[in-house]
């Protein structure tokens, strides 16, 4: 399988700041053709030429999946991050030509569910926006529980309140409003599926609480992409390609491989899909495993690494690439 999904050339139609941290970007197909339809929860990988460094960040599509004229994504500015979101916020303007991937869905709705119970934290609202469009068009039963820092920082709060007053429940940190999760899960009808997207702590909390309440794992869905972390630079020896490459502080191992023309399969670029799993042949040092894919045994044995998010510190790392 080749790396990623087929590329689409797009033109930025509009850039809309929503609040101090969050901006919406809307794309059209560059030649005016239709974009592929997609399913609620899907993401695209957006390619950026960040001053010579090629970045490819995944963003959830938040527009109506039936709208094949345009795609929208919403990006939260991360001032501590490696620069992908900063690039989107400071360099991307209407009219610009960009390249995105064909949509991939790693956070799909379970269409057998009798009811969809959605729990969003902050920017984790984005995949639910497209899912809600999909569920509304098939008149499915859903409920959205949305935690925000404040009304001012809650993306799409107004729009959601207007369109779905009966389905929406909002919890504002600055008002000390809190989701009573155990109670919420306890009151659900049989056949309910729960979906969570937000900070890692929130995802863990929902999964734990659901497990304690004896929810089957198959009814609990979560979207857990991690943006690659910055870290110290390191060197890696590529056994098959017979070369040694350096990974910069603000670069992921996957990006460094791609920069030296080594093709590695990927879908999520966030440690969740497993596509880029790579064998470690020699490891004199420590692998910083930042993924959600490998098992604890695989991590301890130092035989596998996920190049999209994980890093290395030590004397020598040789991988099978």
């Amino acid at each position: 399988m080749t790396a990623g999904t087929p590329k689409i050339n797009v033109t930025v139609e509009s850039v809309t700041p929503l609040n101090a941290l969050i901006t919406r970007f809307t794309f059209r197909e560059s030649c005016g053709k239709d974009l592929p339809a997609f399913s609620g929860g899907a993401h695209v990988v957006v390619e950026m030429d960040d001053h010579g460094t090629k970045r490819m960040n995944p963003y959830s599509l938040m527009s109506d999946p039936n709208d094949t004229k345009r795609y929208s994504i919403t990006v939260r500015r991360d001032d501590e991050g490696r620069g992908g979101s900063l690039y989107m916020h400071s360099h991307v303007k209407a009219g610009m030509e960009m390249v995105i991937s064909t949509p991939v869905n790693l956070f799909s709705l379970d269409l057998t569910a009798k009811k969809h119970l959605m729990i969003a934290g902050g920017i984790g609202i984005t995949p639910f926006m497209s899912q809600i469009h999909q569920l509304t068009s098939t008149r499915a039963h859903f409920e959205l529980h949305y935690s925000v820092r404040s009304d001012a920082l809650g993306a799409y709060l107004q729009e959601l309140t207007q369109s779905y007053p009966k389905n929406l429940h909002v919890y504002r940190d600055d008002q000390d409003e809190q989701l009573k999760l155990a109670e919420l899960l306890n009151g659900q009808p049989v056949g309910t599926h729960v979906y969570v997207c937000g900070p890692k702590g929130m995802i863990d909390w929902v999964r734990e609480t659901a497990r304690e309440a004896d929810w089957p794992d198959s009814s609990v869905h979560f979207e857990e992409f991690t943006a690659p972390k910055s870290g110290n630079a390191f060197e890696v020896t590529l056994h098959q390609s017979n070369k040694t490459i350096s990974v910069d502080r603000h670069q992921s191992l996957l990006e460094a491989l791609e920069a030296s023309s080594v093709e590695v399969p990927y879908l999520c670029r966030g440690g969740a899909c497993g596509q880029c799993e790579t064998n470690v042949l020699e490891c004199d040092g420590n692998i910083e495993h930042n993924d959600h894919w490998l098992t604890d045994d695989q991590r301890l044995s130092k035989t596998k690494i996920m190049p999209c998010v994980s890093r290395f510190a030590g004397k020598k790392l040789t991988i099978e690439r």
Partner: protein
Amino acid sequence: MNITFKDETFRDDYTFSNSEEQIKRFPFPFHEDSYMYSVNMEPHAAVRPGSVFENDFDVDEHYVSEMRDRAKVLDEDPLRCQSLPHMTLAGWDLLELIMTSKAKDYPHWFELHRDGKNWHWINHPLNIEQKFIFGDETTLPYGPLEYITRQTQGDFVLLDQREENLWLEAGMVTTQADWSLDFDIGMNFFEWHAPVPLAHEMGIFQRALKFLLNIQQGTPARRLNWTMTANPLLDTSPENYHKWGKQKLEVTRENVGNKMHLRVELQTFFRLPRSNALVFPIRCYLIKLEELVTIPKWGRRFHRVIRDLPEELATYKGFIDNRPKIVEYLSKYDDGQDTSLGIWPE
């Protein structure tokens, strides 16, 4: 492509046959002189103009007659087409995929005019014209899956993806190699493959499932599978085994070349955009032994494959009793010469 649609039957008097052109484009499934299972997947990309791999959905000279045969099967047994309630969206996905592909690949036969959700479909070979609202079942004479697959050669299975598995939850199945949609509906990938011998031990299904779960929009895949059928029967279903099973006993040393058919399935896999389900089209191609041996390379190779096939496979594929007659017939077309690699005629 200049084709005359044949008027022929796949039952009773069995007037089915392949034209010379159709024989040359037959998807011969053996790339070497022996056969064993493998996850022989490749991208479903266009290769060799005129071949069955040129378009997403191949339309050939048997189209009109195959659709007539499907309608008869459905008249007798409506359960050959079923869709669990959550699979309706996948049905619309499939309808869209087939209509847009056929209108693009065969514009002289199929037309699709779209104005938002108002769609206008014209199928010239079957003389069908339909205006409908995309997404509104009440505007079509059948559900979307049944509507479009009554107009498309091959069986279709819709697979829902959840719990890291695939679930067979809708389909149109009238040209199958002895399996039943009504029996399998609701099963997951491992359950519906349970009857297949040897492959489980080889770990084939774990690898195949992993591959299928990762098929993405815009990158369909394909493989070939095969078996053998006495008489050119499309509907070799368990439901009708009492009708066709005994026909295997009619094969003699004299009629084997005409009666025995190699049955090849072109299996393709597409990720569907709106439902995130997979569609698994299984297109059946039939060829008589006497047609097959007109391609010298195929005659030589097929003899060697059938002669050396493990007994379990010949049993599972249902021709163990007729194998000696088939091998004897084919041996006359095997002069012992080397064959080139690959499936195409020399």
